[in-house]
């Protein structure tokens, strides 16, 4: 029996996303607003995350990472596609069942201060998710809060303090603690460390690691810093203009980046070592990210790609498996 169960969970991923699209209408009009186009923030993304794994999503600003993360949590309504968490099809849930289901998936935000209600003290902050899902009595909730605080490395004496009385790193710990309170299956971390100082960033990254082991969490980590993502994740997906362009386990991505964009990203990350820096081959991309409202034809990256050919403008590259567990969307094998 037990054998079966474990086998099952190992094969079936915890989170499966299929052809997810999130389009934001661009409204304009004189008296009555009309939709004149769409920002294709997420434009057909499929990925899956196994239970207990960490999936890292990287890409430049505006490429749709946050939108994807929010769509998974149904904070943003997907335009098309399916999301399945465990056995539940999240995209088909409506109102109350959805609200109930939210206990299974939680989020950690980029701005640690902004995501904490300034008028709620730590106790209210942590108890709220339990309260709205009717978990436990007051004392039980308190006990759970103390435990969780302990897990994120904060003393229980902070229960009656307010968010603005903490440092940036501590606030992020609070944010993580709140996400942990319901012991969810999935936590979406949207830029969990990018607002923090280097030394604090490291603390939080280590904490996320430890918590994953302790609570058996599954993470979807969103970040623009390739080094951070690589450090935290088992699998890394690279996004460009609303689409995944490459996906592999984090080792492989670094060793053999197959998409020119990934290569460029990797080469752009400065390393704290003058020697590496001096000898590093740099790929400097031309220009800026095109507008997601009307992405380039064919391969979206072609406008900035140093290897672009004619075919790139004409045909959209297929999402193919270039090596085991290593998918890429490029016409060429680089």
């Amino acid at each position, binding site marked *: 029996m037990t054998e079966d169960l474990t086998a099952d969970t190992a094969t079936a991923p915890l989170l499966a996303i299929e052809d997810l699209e999130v389009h934001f209408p661009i409204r304009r009009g004189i008296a009555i607003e009309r939709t004149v186009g769409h920002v294709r923030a997420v434009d057909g993304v499929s990925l899956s995350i196994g239970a207990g794994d960490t999936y890292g999503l990287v890409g430049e600003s505006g490429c749709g990472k946050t939108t994807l993360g929010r769509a998974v949590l149904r904070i943003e309504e997907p335009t098309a596609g399916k999301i399945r968490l465990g056995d539940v099809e999240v995209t088909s849930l409506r109102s109350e069942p959805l609200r109930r289901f*939210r206990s299974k*998936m939680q989020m950690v*935000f980029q701005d640690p201060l*902004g995501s*904490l209600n300034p008028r709620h003290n730590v106790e209210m902050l942590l108890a709220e*998710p339990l309260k*709205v899902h009717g978990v436990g009595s007051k004392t039980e909730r308190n006990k759970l809060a103390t435990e969780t605080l302990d897990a994120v490395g904060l003393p229980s004496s902070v229960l009656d303090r307010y968010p603005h*009385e903490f440092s940036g790193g501590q606030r992020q710990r609070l944010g993580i603690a709140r996400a942990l309170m319901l012991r969810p299956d999935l936590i979406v971390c949207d830029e969990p460390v990018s607002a923090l100082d280097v030394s604090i960033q490291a603390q939080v990254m280590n904490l996320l690691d430890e918590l994953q082991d302790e609570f058996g969490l599954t993470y979807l980590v969103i970040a623009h810093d390739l080094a951070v993502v690589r450090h935290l994740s088992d699998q890394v997906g690279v996004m460009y203009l609303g689409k995944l362009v490459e996906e592999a386990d984090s080792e492989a991505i670094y060793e053999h980046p197959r998409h020119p964009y990934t290569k460029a990203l990797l080469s752009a990350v400065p390393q704290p070592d003058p020697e590496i820096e001096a000898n590093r081959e740099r790929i400097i991309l031309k220009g800026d990210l095109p507008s997601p409202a009307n992405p380039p034809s064919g391969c979206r990256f072609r406008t900035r790609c140093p290897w672009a050919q004619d075919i790139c403008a004409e045909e959209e590259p297929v999402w193919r498996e270039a090596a085991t567990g290593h998918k890429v969307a490029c016409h060429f094998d680089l």
Partner: protein
Amino acid sequence: MAKIERLDRLIEASVTARDAESGSLWRQSLRRMRRSPMAICGAVIVGLFFIVALLGPWIAPYGPTEQTWGGEVFLNQNIFPGPRAENWFGLDHLGRDMFSRMVVGARQTMLVGVVATLIGFAAGAVVGGFAAAAGTFGGRWGERLEAVIMRAVDVALSIPMLLLALSVAALLGPSLTTVMIAVGVAQIPIFARMLRGSMLAQAHSDYVLAAISMGVPKARIVVSHILPNSLGPVIVQATLVLATAIIEAAALSYLGLGNPDPGTPEWGTMLADAQRFLSGAPQLAIYPAVGIIITALGFTLLGEAMRESLDPRLRRQQ
């Protein structure tokens, strides 16, 4: 070893120094306000005003309507005894003690200000809050409802406030209640706008997103997350409106729409009445005028200080 202890103590000191800053946002801004001379001035004036307003009848040496010195006052000869030992502020045109009238009048004036503001605040908050809640969580229909409500508010806003008050006053006939309602009603669109704006700003903040993602019910999000955080600027506005209300009330009284009952003195009415004697006995106008100005100033100072202490942008500059 002693050195290590010293280190611990130092760290402790640095931590407690931070602890001294603890407390909720309100408490903190209160502490900041305690250091601002503007806030202190405002609080002292407002405090004094409230004390006088509450204790007025006991402080006043004479009844506000007692025509004790009627025989000494000759309206038709412009004879009004000025300040003297028995009557600190002198006598008014019917031989009543001005000091008593000022002191007793404070209560009416306060009543006008407070009630008018409460009317504007309550109604405005309901309208604005409802609109914002509908727009944020009501789906498509909610958005439309919000648009309609806010259009109406905009239309109301495009009528100058005094005119709005004037029409209300015309509807109800002159009385103190009229003034309160007129001034209050005229403030509704402003409060509605402010609360809505402030709520929408909060509605897009990360912590509301966080609450949604945790599955907090919508009603609870509005009531326990959005509203408390949006009220700050509105409360500040209320303080400022109190000042405006007192001045507007005086203007309405001047236009003959104020309290017509001379039995209960009220500063605005006193000022409006005394306009007749401005060149012969200016003191009769100046007492209530100064009363109004100082009180309005008090509320304004307090409101401004509150705004400054709550406004993070201004805080940063400090």
